[in-house]
């Protein structure tokens, strides 16, 4: 795996990728795969699906390096978050509602004696309720609670101003509190 240019900035690596440099591509992939995978997993709740999305996103960049236009995008990660989010949304749209329901089924009649079991159940319900949120609220939540992303960055990724983002998060949290009141 490439570790040739750990000191190079993303935009420098991207310029090399545009010249067909596969080592620069390897460096960029190694640097950012983890964070984009985490985001994709939060959307798709499936390791295989999240890995596929991240792979597709990076391969798109490799195949068409001119997609990245430094004069139009301030930061690679901001732009690429958008690419990954769009791929996740496309994938979710392709899935049937029936498949989603099946995926988020959980055994709610289990005895809640074990603390770990309760936590697991809480998480499962939370994921189901997040999946049921409107698309923009879900995106705002996924971006803001992803480590390392400020509200300002999340707003930039979504193409909204800070106030609009905060409003989306507030609405999402209000809905979640209402739907999960038994657990909160």
């Amino acid at each position, binding site marked *: *795996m*490439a570790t040739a240019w750990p000191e190079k900035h993303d935009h420098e690596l991207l310029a090399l990728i*545009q010249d*067909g440099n*596969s080592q620069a*591509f*390897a460096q960029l*992939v*190694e640097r950012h*795969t*983890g964070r984009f*995978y*985490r985001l994709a*997993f*939060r959307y798709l709740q499936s*390791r295989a699906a*999240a*890995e596929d999305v*991240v*792979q597709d996103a*990076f*391969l798109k960049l*490799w*195949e*068409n*390096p*001119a997609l990245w236009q430094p004069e139009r995008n301030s930061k690679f990660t901001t732009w690429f978050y958008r690419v990954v989010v769009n791929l996740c949304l496309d994938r979710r749209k392709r899935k049937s509602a029936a498949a989603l329901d099946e995926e988020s089924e959980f055994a709610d009649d289990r005895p809640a004696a074990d603390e770990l079991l309760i936590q697991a159940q*809480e*998480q499962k319900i*939370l*994921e189901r309720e997040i999946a049921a949120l409107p698309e923009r609220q879900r995106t705002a*939540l996924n971006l803001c*609670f992803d480590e390392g992303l400020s509200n300002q960055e999340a707003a930039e990724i979504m193409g909204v101003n800070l106030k609009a983002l905060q409003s989306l998060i*507030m609405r999402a*949290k*209000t809905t*979640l*509190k209402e739907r*999960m*009141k038994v*657990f*909160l």
Partner: protein
Amino acid sequence: MTANDPREEKLDRLLRARRVDPAGPDLAQRIVLRARQTPQNPSLSLWQWLRELCLELHLPKPAYVLASALVFGLVIGLSTPDRSAINGNDSAADASVQSVFSTDEGLL
């Protein structure tokens, strides 16, 4: 919905503790390997396209081609006879044009 709302705090805690299954340890490597098997589709600028064309047709570098074309154009331009040099034959040329017109008119 104050900051001290225990429900809000618990929800925040749950949101931060969302479980993420770790990715396969070789995910990055798999992506790089797939990319190595995939050709790039670079979108060429006009200059890059010209360079590619020169390479393809085994022509010299585009800069040389352009400079040669410029010099060639200048040489042709300078070697073209001056219009004033043929002014002396103008009346003869006019006469032949006139005769062509009059022949056409005669046919009509």
